[in-house]
């Protein structure tokens, strides 16, 4: 199935993946196709290889690396299971009180032997259209820039500044 077919699937966005094996499988396929779609050209996608399988709780749902370009990407899924209010303005540090659909950080991702450490971005996102749109922006930039960490940090700083001013307001 391609990305469009997955988006049109009656179970999309596969929120029951923790209980439902089929939805989990479809979610894995969605993230592989989503990532491939962010890269654009087929030849760009060929350099990326999976490092680890998806975990059943969606953390991570995708881990891929590109040796030639010395970088990696890890995606975590999050969901608002308790229907908490969205993260408000003012940058409160109150664990468990609010829901933030998207957070991300720069990190190192290692291969299974632990021998190779790739500069990486870790994106923790829910499946909402706004968070997926921003995830696409970050992934596209991170995968295409020659030196990706600076622009990604700048993107992150702008995101946090906006969060601080207005809370999570994207729809």
């Amino acid at each position, binding site marked *: 199935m391609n990305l469009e077919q997955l988006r049109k699937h009656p179970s999309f966005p596969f929120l029951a993946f923790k209980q439902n094996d089929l939805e989990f499988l479809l979610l894995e396929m969605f993230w592989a196709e989503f990532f491939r779609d962010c890269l654009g050209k087929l030849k760009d996608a060929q350099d990326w290889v999976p490092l680890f399988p998806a975990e059943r709780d969606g953390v991570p749902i995708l881990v891929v690396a590109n040796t030639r370009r010395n970088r990696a990407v890890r995606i975590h899924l999050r969901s608002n299971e308790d229907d908490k209010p969205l993260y408000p303005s003012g940058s409160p540090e109150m664990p468990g009180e609010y829901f933030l659909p998207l957070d991300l950080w720069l990190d190192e991702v290692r291969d299974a032997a*632990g021998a190779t450490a790739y500069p990486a971005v870790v994106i923790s996102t829910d499946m909402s259209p706004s968070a997926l749109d921003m995830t696409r922006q970050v992934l596209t930039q991170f995968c295409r820039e020659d030196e990706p960490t600076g622009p990604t940090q700048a993107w992150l700083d702008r995101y946090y500044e906006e969060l601080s001013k207005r809370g999570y307001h994207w729809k």
Partner: protein
Amino acid sequence: MGGTSRSTLGASPITLSVPIPALTGAANAQTTYAMLDNTQRGIREAAFAKALKWLSERPANGGFLGQKSFEVSGVRGGIRFDIDSFGPSNNFVT
């Protein structure tokens, strides 16, 4: 432990010639947690508890290689408790 940059804080990694027991992993996690001040511990309390629960629920043969994050929900900044596992065999055997 980590935030949005690549700087992290943690106990020295465990290196063994056999798969690492889950209890050894949990002891290492406790060492990392003890390195934090009270404020840092407070915000990560629930994430740390989830990490210990996850370690305690590993199958008998271990079954994990890779990097696992237990995120602090509802805050920004990549605040989390990480457990990393590498090597020729699955770690955290019980």
